[in-house]
């Protein structure tokens, strides 16, 4: 099965007062059709910028996609004209953002915003678009879709607004849905509803999904593959089950251990010491060196290699194989 999306050596840099920030620095990953890829990272890791780069919404200035390829269905998105990429956005690649309040136009009725999508991309007439909008609202579980279609965003709750966003995103039946922290701003019970909805829609429409989040629980429940980002680089990528059971990178291990486990007894919680790096002034060597439990001299001098631990499992670390073995994995021969 060919990949739906193939990102190669993507680099997106930002010019700031402090210097050049390499928000995304040479990352490569693939997404197979019908799969869900999770991108995990904390603030400053570059996960959001990665997405914006894929659909070329990076604010320019101060940001710029410096190099790389983003091959979507065979064509490189970075080489397309502005007009061509605009046709793709919304129609074949759709995106939902974290804050549904600011993503919706407060002055426009919900129905109108939904209709705009299909009128623009599918050439629907007003009546067709309206019917389609109502159907989409029902599909995403908004009760009384008919009567609520004429409402404004502020009349909906956060969870409902996010559903509207999902409806908008899926209106044109895109091949790829990018969801950037879609549930972070929502209550946990609503989050559960939205995540179930995304899963259901994915099953029904076969859309591939890229899910960006910092919540490892969400990743565990929703994704097939995961990439872990830190300081603009991919630190680990693997199948989800593999990543959680046998992580091969100290950062991933640290993250997994610092999430409180509600089923275990209380004790001191593991914490990753120190602070995320200053992206404008990265030190040589591994960006995680200052905080790593496994750090040695070499980590501070040399940038770590991207080690293949398994088919489908890679880790950026000088000691990837040792860490992997410690977790119970068996690395393949070099």
């Amino acid at each position, binding site marked *: 099965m060919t990949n739906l999306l193939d990102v190669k050596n993507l680099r997106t840099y930002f010019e700031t007062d402090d210097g050049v920030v390499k928000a995304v620095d040479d990352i490569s990953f693939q997404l197979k059709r019908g799969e869900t890829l999770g991108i995990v990272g904390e603030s400053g890791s570059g996960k959001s910028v990665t997405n914006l780069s894929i659909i070329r919404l990076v604010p320019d200035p101060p940001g710029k996609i410096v190099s790389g390829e983003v091959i979507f269905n065979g064509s490189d998105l970075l080489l397309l004209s502005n007009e061509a990429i605009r046709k793709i956005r919304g129609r074949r690649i759709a995106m939902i953002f974290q804050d549904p309040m600011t993503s919706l136009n407060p002055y426009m009725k919900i129905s109108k915003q939904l209709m705009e999508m299909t009128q623009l991309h599918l050439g629907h007439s007003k009546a067709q678009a309206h019917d389609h909008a109502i159907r989409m609202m029902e599909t995403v579980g908004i009760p009384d879709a008919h009567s609520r279609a004429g409402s404004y965003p502020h009349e909906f709750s956060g969870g409902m607004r996010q559903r509207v966003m999902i409806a908008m995103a899926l209106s044109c039946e895109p091949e790829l849905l990018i969801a950037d922290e879609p549930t972070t701003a929502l209550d946990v019970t609503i989050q559960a509803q939205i995540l179930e909805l995304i899963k259901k829609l994915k099953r029904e429409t076969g859309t591939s999904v890229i899910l960006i989040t910092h919540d*490892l*629980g969400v990743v565990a*429940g929703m994704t097939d593959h995961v990439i872990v980002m830190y300081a603009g680089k991919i630190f680990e990528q693997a199948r989800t089950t593999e990543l959680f059971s046998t992580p091969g990178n100290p950062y991933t291990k640290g993250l997994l251990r*610092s*999430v409180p486990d509600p089923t275990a007894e209380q004790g001191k919680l593991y914490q990753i010491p120190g602070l995320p790096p200053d992206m404008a002034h990265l030190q040589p060597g591994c960006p995680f060196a200052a905080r790593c439990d496994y750090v040695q001299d070499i980590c501070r001098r040399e940038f770590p290699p991207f080690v293949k631990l398994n088919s489908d499992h890679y880790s950026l670390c000088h000691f990837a194989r040792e860490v992997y073995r410690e977790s119970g994995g068996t690395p393949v021969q070099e």
Partner: protein
Amino acid sequence: MSANESTLLSIRDLKVHFDLGGGGPLDKLFGTNPVKRVVKAVDGVSIDIYKGETLGLVGESGCGKSTLGRAILRLTEPTEGRVLYNNEDLAHLKPKRLREQRRHLQIIFQDPYASLNPRMTVGQIVGEPLETFRLARGREAEQRVQELLETVGLSKRFIKRYPHEFSGGQRQRIGIARALAVDPDFIVADEPISALDVSIQAQIMNLLERLRREKNLTYLFISHDLRAIRHVSDRVAVMYLGKLVEIADAKTIYEEPLMPYTKALISAVPVPDPQVEAARQRIMLEGDVPSPINPPTGCRFHTRCPYVIEACKEVVPQLVEIKPAHFAACIRISPAQPHIEDVAPGAAPGLPQNGPQKGT
């Protein structure tokens, strides 16, 4: 809930209502706000907080937990009710006496960016409480500030820096140092880790725990993050639309919750384990959290509860000790029949014998 010597704070029937207007003759005439709208953010909360414990207060947005925390400290004026501390009612103290008592009750905020004055240096921010309560001056004050910074894990060399030069986690530490400056007994931690990165959350939770042990503090830890609450709390109180619906120790709440809402809440938390996630059956709640403006009648949860019966819409359930030290507010369970799944359909063993009584 009887008060005993080890009770630090006794909250009795605390209410915080915000009047949004409406319902007046002019409104009726113009048809703008025909119904009087009141936000019952906190609607009759009673609980004791014991010395040295961390009481976790959990609930979703709009449940009133932040308002409750602030009302206890009278940063928001309570509409009714009492907050007893050292035999004084904080809710009704005169301003001067209240300011004196503020020394013992401090707060840490959620937003590390908004909770520090951007025009003051760290030294000034942490030192201000010392000045206000005249606890130290000059050289001595400076030394104390340096000690405080080191206590929370920041280098004392940061004393002349400004908040914007720090990361979120560091700013949160500054806020903690400020709260500790006056040696309080009680700290309300209002979502102290929600705005922080995962790797930093653990640091701050550990810090708070260490400080509690070292300084004999009592915490009210407010959060919507159940995993964090489970980790840091001794007891947990669950809040929904202005009322407490369940209180128990942390382990029990997580492993054997009695209330349908609590069960749903816990079931909704994603677990970082793909196999568990794949296998689990979630209890999904229908619909949205209702608005705290003119909330549902009777049991506020009735609009979403999978076990709802007619009586639930009329009777306001009280917190009843269903199991030892485990309280729940639901008419469909009782000490004799604590598990709602086992209760016969339509039955309400929690109702008083002489029929349903309309509560306030």
